[in-house]
């Protein structure tokens, strides 16, 4: 799959993403400056993490108005593949390409730590190299990753199978409901799993055609055994092979 990475001012995980994509595909992704509008020839558009425009008004709000976004929307409309990670996920929701919004983390602090994600379906181009129900490790590094949508939207996402990934314990158990502030019982790893307080422990979602994935944690930072794990690599292997 031919991939391009969109770079907004303030994005800072574009290099991590390029390394992960190149490692799996052998091809250097095209770097796309946010004022470019030509996405022709690309199968996959990746919006990486960072603090686009400083995330000053709301995370991703300004980037969602950038010239490249019209082209990204058109790319989505023609059935192109899009991966938005962290700030990229926030930008996709701000642009209305994915539903819901990412609020401040429940504990109002930046969270930088490993988390475990449970794969909710493995029949998509993103998760083909994982098993359904499998959990894998990823790095989270965000201040605003608390997924929110109204109940009707959440029910629709669940009903249509559009929840891609959920925060889970290493054993794959999913905490229910939001975590009460500052009141996590010690040793309860399941309850600890959803640290940012996301609705229904949602870490990532798809569009109905399953071709756009937005997720908060960073699979691209765990693709090399030297960094402690290669749990994120199957995602990029699957994209490279598709």
């Amino acid at each position, binding site marked *: 799959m031919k991939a391009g990475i969109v770079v907004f*001012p303030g994005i*800072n*995980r574009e290099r*991590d993403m390029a390394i992960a994509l190149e490692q799996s595909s052998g091809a250097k992704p095209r770097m796309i400056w946010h004022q470019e509008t030509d996405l022709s020839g690309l199968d996959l558009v990746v919006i990486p993490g960072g*603090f686009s425009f400083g995330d000053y008004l709301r995370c991703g709000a300004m980037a969602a108005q950038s010239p490249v976004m019209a082209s990204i929307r058109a790319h989505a409309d023609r059935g192109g593949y899009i991966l938005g990670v962290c700030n990229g996920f926030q930008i996709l929701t701000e642009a209305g390409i994915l539903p819901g919004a990412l609020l401040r983390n429940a504990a109002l602090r*930046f969270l930088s730590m490993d988390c475990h994600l449970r794969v909710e379906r493995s029949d998509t181009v993103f998760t083909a190299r994982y098993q359904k129900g499998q959990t894998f490790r990823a790095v989270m*590094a965000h201040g605003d990753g608390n997924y929110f949508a109204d109940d009707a939207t959440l029910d629709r996402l669940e009903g249509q199978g559009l929840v891609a990934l959920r925060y889970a314990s290493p054993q794959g158990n999913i905490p229910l409901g939001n975590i009460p502030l500052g009141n996590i019982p010690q040793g309860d790893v399941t309850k600890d799993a959803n640290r940012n307080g996301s609705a229904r422990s949602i870490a990532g979602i798809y569009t109905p055609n399953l071709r756009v994935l937005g997720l908060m944690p960073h699979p691209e930072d765990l693709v090399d055994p*030297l960094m402690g794990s290669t749990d994120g690599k199957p995602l990029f292997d699957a994209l490279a092979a598709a």
Partner: protein
Amino acid sequence: MQKEVNQSLAREFGLSAEEYGKVLEIMGRTPSLTELGVFSVMWSEHCSYKSSRVWLRQLPTKAPWVIHGPGENAGVVDIGDGLAAIFKMESHNHPSFIEPYQGAATGVGGILRDVFTMGARPIANLNALRFGSPNHPRTRRIVDGVVRGIGGYGNCVGVPTVGGEINFHPAYDGNPLVNAMTVGIAPKDRIFLSAAAGIGNPVVYVGSKTGRDGIHGATMASAEFGADSEEKRPTVQVGDPFTEKLLIEACLELMATDAIVAIQDMGAAGLTSSSVEMAAKGGVGIELDLNMVPARETGMTAYEFMLSESQERMLMVLRPDRESVARAIFEKWDLDFAIIGHITDTGRIVVRHNGVVEADIPLAPLNDEAPLYTRPTTETPKGEKLNPARVESRVGLASALQTLVGCPDLCSRAWVWDQYDSTVGGQTVKRPGAADAAVVKLEGLKRALALTTDCTPRYCAADPETGGRQAVAEAWRNLTAVGARPLAITDNLNFGNPEKPEIMGQFAAAIRGMAAACEALDFPVVSGNVSLYNETERRAILPTPAIGGLGVLDDAAQAVGLALPPWLDIVLIGATTGWLGQSLWLREIAGREDGAPPPVDLVAERTNGDFVRAQILAGHVRACHDVSDGGILVALAEMAMASGIGLRISTHPRDIPGHAYWFGEDQARYLLAVPDSIAMVKAAEAAGVPALRIAVSGGQDLTLPDGSTISVQALRDSHERFFPAWMDGETKKD
């Protein structure tokens, strides 16, 4: 109306009568307000190092791998593969007390600029933090703000924060220390320096606009004041990490061309120090037109332009034919770009505003005649060596261990690290807490850097010379413990009022100790920063010469961490005498802060460390941890907690009391987890290194030498309790 310039105004600006006399002599007339401002900041302690310079000269600064030592924006060392590491540590203590979030954030921003100014892409941030007693009512708020500020800035610019240290002591109640360190990488033949050159070349201002931020208190009180002066003159600078990120990318993009002749960031004393230093270093003159400076506010005076400390700004001298290339890059990144002057052959700095010459100063005397003081010193009285047999222990090993691993100075820092993005860049091999030093791989290469910050202020207070030696030795040891070859250090010397002989004595002795250690360990100082006058209500902080160490691993895969694997032998390297003086056991368990600190035998330090490194690189070591605060038992517990694997610990030699043996803080020691302890001990003996098998790993409990048992989980519970519980208390009380 502007105030009249005279000796009393000069005093308000911080210049002594003698210093003002020198100004009059150099100028041959009464200086203008702007000129007085320039002299006062250039001759301030911060810019001129007038109290510390005579002592700093004692520090070794050279080695075959040192490319640039002190004197540039940051130190530069050769790390192989045609690359250089560029690094420095700098303090932002006072601003962090006034406004913890912005103080810490702008501290990170400032040190980042010192590093990317030289052409390096920043790849890691570290910090060294000292706070007051956890029981002091202000401490919690300061810790919270500083941690948020460091995270807020570092996370946004996308530079991983990979390491650091935190101590608490009542001596920092009114004066926390925030020392920030940045490490960057550049091709070693593409280092950018600050010496201006090329008569007629344009002087270019890039970055954020200038406002009235940070024009310091003393000068604030003297300039013209209107009714809205309060609102007009914020003394706290506000950081904008987004602009900094753009500035990094734009500067690195420009540095890939041949446009830049010289470049310097605008740090303390902003436009003044950057323009003066660039011109003086190049032996040229400089002319500035302040009407060309991008301003955020209207009606700013020449004095305000020259002294503003607005953040995220840089000054460059460009090749005239490359101006349009440079302009296009900065416009692409939406940053201000303005030609504000040019280089001259006059040897003077001339500043014009609204067509009027506001300053015209000869640069050579401004630099060369800067004050230099050899202030009087008195020696710190030395404490007595404690006899371990005479220090009674009323607490069993298990209980003392549990208390120690949970005390503020030793407890888990996860609450802090979890707020710092430590993985951005995708090259972090050893994250905070995983090893004695952070390990960051170089993109696309096998090579990695090991990084650490260290200082034990309570040793420095008891014996500044030993404390200075120990700080350097511990940094060297921590790099060694991951398998790295230590290369060089940056230092951040935090002390009290240098006009007091006892403080200057601490300073001189600490330098003496550091110099000896640097010399013995081939570990030169390549950059640094001095922060004096750290006092509140006349009470000084503990002397704190914080050391930032940098080492290199040829292959990142050889790095070892401290997490204990099961079914291995633990070998103690180094001699144990049971040294309890100034130990944490003495303070936390016996409630005493006395005695002489452990001596640092630099020969043993070198021999033991070189042995350990060789064993790691030969692949004989699965985990390694140096023995420092809390002694052997705490170090063993830290290894166990990192993996969840337990230990069965042997009995100790009979001639040393148990608590002294297990909690004493003798130096130059390491714990190695090895599959073959017999071979390891034999190899150590051959190298003349003391070695002893003291434990076996496995299970989920620590079985202690006195027969008692404590589970790793119970230790972890104590270890992890303090920070979240203490910080959570903030929303409940206060």
